[in-house]
């Protein structure tokens, strides 16, 4: 039975997250925007929280006909929106809840989850010459006795300085294309593993982003994510793509959260100036500002519902890669457009660093880029709905 209203427990969770974002993150938002690369000690309190829960892989549900449906992804999109509303950089910088942790939860073996479950794992995918084109990856992994030996360079790694270990994607066999790609858990202190630099960014300055180089970097044989022998030929690359199916709705929600922050602020300022949106007015009888406002609100809601649907599908074990990309495409773009429009409507208040709007604009810009640019999302959606392969629709 279709019902798009949140259930009471999710509403309560949303409320809790909102209070949390408002009281913990919002007050220190500007501080770490200005103190770039400085670790926000205030986040330390979150380290002990249990961010991910998962059943052991050996404990498969016995009855196939009743797929286990959880709410982890719905909670994920709700908390992403609320926390990003408070401050998106801290969302990316919650200790022990990095993208690498997500990969560990979805693809790691029981032993790996045991060992790294309470560590902070960053995720290293992008290379100087391999952005969205994961197959162009040049970082190599060669098995040498009981070790993997990694060589290459990874850029744009979130939490590079703060994390304990990094999940690094590398190719074990360049000639095999994407099928040769695997993910490796690399401890920060592994020999040959160096943090080269931290980027200076337009936004999201409260979260650090760095470059790692690997020169004959040795890690134990067991640190290939999900195990090497067990993984079938597609697991490595597909595993990462599956991570995207759960992470894209959350990144969509993040963009929605920032745009909502801007929209809420604009609503407040409008109200102070006696412009109060009236949902009974016909579109002919409203001012240009009101029309802009309504359209932003509608687009935001549309993006939110797309992200809910994608997350709900993941929770209910339904393949959702099209929906995840739809949500990300819509939310990434609308996040930027809405925040931009709010800054325009706010006028001088949208430019001055006395207010947070300009920061949100800087923060949100990357959300139509990371986890796959808007164009990549369109490409994925188009390929899926048109049933075209990557060689037919390049």
């Amino acid at each position, binding site marked *: 039975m279709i019902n*798009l209203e949140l259930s009471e427990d999710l509403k309560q969770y949303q409320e809790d997250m909102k209070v949390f974002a408002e009281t913990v993150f919002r007050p220190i938002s500007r501080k770490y925007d200005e103190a770039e690369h400085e670790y926000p000690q205030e986040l330390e309190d979150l380290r002990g929280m249990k961010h991910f829960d998962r059943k052991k892989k050996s404990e498969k549900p016995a009855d196939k006909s009743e797929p286990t449906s959880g709410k982890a992804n719905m909670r994920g999109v709700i908390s992403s929106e609320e926390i990003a509303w408070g401050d998106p950089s801290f969302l990316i910088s919650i200790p022990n809840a990095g993208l690498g942790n997500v990969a560990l939860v979805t693809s790691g073996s029981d032993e790996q989850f045991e060992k790294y479950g309470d560590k902070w794992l960053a995720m290293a995918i992008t290379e100087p010459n391999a952005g969205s084109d994961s197959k162009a990856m040049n970082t190599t992994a060669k098995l040498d006795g009981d070790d993997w030996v990694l060589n290459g360079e990874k850029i744009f790694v979130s939490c590079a300085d703060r994390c304990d270990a990094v999940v690094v994607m590398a190719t074990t066999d360049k000639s095999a294309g994407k099928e040769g790609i695997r993910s490796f858990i690399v401890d920060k202190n592994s020999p040959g593993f160096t943090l080269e630099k931290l980027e200076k960014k337009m936004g999201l300055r409260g979260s650090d982003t760095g470059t790692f180089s690997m020169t004959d970097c040795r890690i134990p044989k067991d640190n290939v994510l999900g195990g090497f022998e067990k993984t079938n030929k597609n697991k490595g690359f597909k595993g990462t793509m599956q991570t995207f199916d759960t992470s894209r709705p959350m990144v969509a929600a993040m963009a929605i959260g920032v745009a909502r922050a801007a929209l809420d602020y604009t609503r407040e300022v409008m109200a102070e100036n006696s412009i109060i949106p009236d949902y*009974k007015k016909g579109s002919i009888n409203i001012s240009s500002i009101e029309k802009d406002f309504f359209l932003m609100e*509608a*687009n935001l809601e549309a993006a939110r519902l797309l992200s809910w649907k994608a997350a709900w599908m993941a929770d209910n074990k339904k393949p959702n890669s099209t929906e995840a990309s739809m949500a990300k495409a819509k939310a990434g773009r609308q996040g930027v457009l809405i925040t931009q429009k709010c800054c325009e409507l706010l006028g001088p208040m949208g430019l001055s660093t006395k207010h947070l709007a300009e920061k949100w604009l800087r923060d949100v810009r990357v959300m139509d880029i990371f986890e796959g640019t808007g164009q990549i999302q*369109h490409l994925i*959606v188009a390929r899926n709905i*048109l049933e075209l392969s990557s060689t*037919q629709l*390049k």
Partner: protein
Amino acid sequence: MLSFNMSEEQTITRDTVARLVKDLIIDTAHEMDEAGNIPEEYIQAAWELGASIAAIPEAYGGYDMDYSPMMNAIILEELAYGDMAFAVAATLPSMFIFPVYEMGTEEQKKKYLPLFCKEAYTPCTCAINEPGFGFDPHKLKTKAVKKNGSYILNGEKCFVPLAKESSHFLIAASCDGENSFFIADAENAGINIKKPERNLGLYSLKTYEVALDNCEIPAKNRLVGNSDCNYDKIIQKSAIAMSAIGTGVSRASYEYARDYAKERIQFGEPIAHKQSIAFMIAEMAYEVEAMRLMTWKAASMLENGKDCQRDSFLARLYAGEMSMKVTDHGIQVLGGHGFIREHPVERYYRNARGVAILHGMAIV
């Protein structure tokens, strides 16, 4: 509980309506549009689905089932996927029946509902829209003035579907600043139905301008309503219905363009292989999905007994904007062929223009 899954009944209903539309409407919609007419048997077939009178008690001729705005939204999307004019025509009596049932007195219900709650489709209609610039259903220019146990109505109405074919009207008018509905018999003096309108779209739906010239309606024919159901609520429900219809029209355009792009060969390969085309189609796909979810969200609120003023307003605003965008893309994908009436995309585009403008054409 939050769910994007249809229940068994919702799935069967959707599939049934989809089958009806595929059997009767998809291939004939163009002819109907050109001829400016919908064959009665198609309307009757859709009427026999029973959706319009499902929630009406048996005592008034209905089926006494639970009222479900969500089910109505699902049905309207499927009907409009076939043809928007057909969707409006086939469900039009709801625009009379629902308000009378929800806001009417016992006497009004007893008298009027059995006339239309029966097996044969019997046209009755609703007059809300008004001609001229700046129409807003909350600011009606048609006025009702009380005089000696009657209301005297004066004003102009337009886009009144099947006005000439209907035996009864529900007329929206403002009375002492309060918007209200009045039940009128077609025979009532002062109701002047003009000749059929010629509109941008919906060629096969006969609509009329109706002038109310000192139209005297007995006071007992005013729908009073209460806090649960009032004029605003009817406007909300019709906004959700229009979003569902907008979703259906847009989906039709999206699917046609998608299939066309895979067949149409230029430069030695299907045009779907070009990003500029493929990305447009991707955008159409997710905007259709977004429109549907906005509609479903508002319908969920209604179904759960919540206030849906904001959600119905946003759903309709969104459907109005996006159905234009999607159907416009539909034409663009077909290029010059999109401008030729043999392909349905130009009809979808003309019809979709009504989504943002027309009020009270359908109800959930």
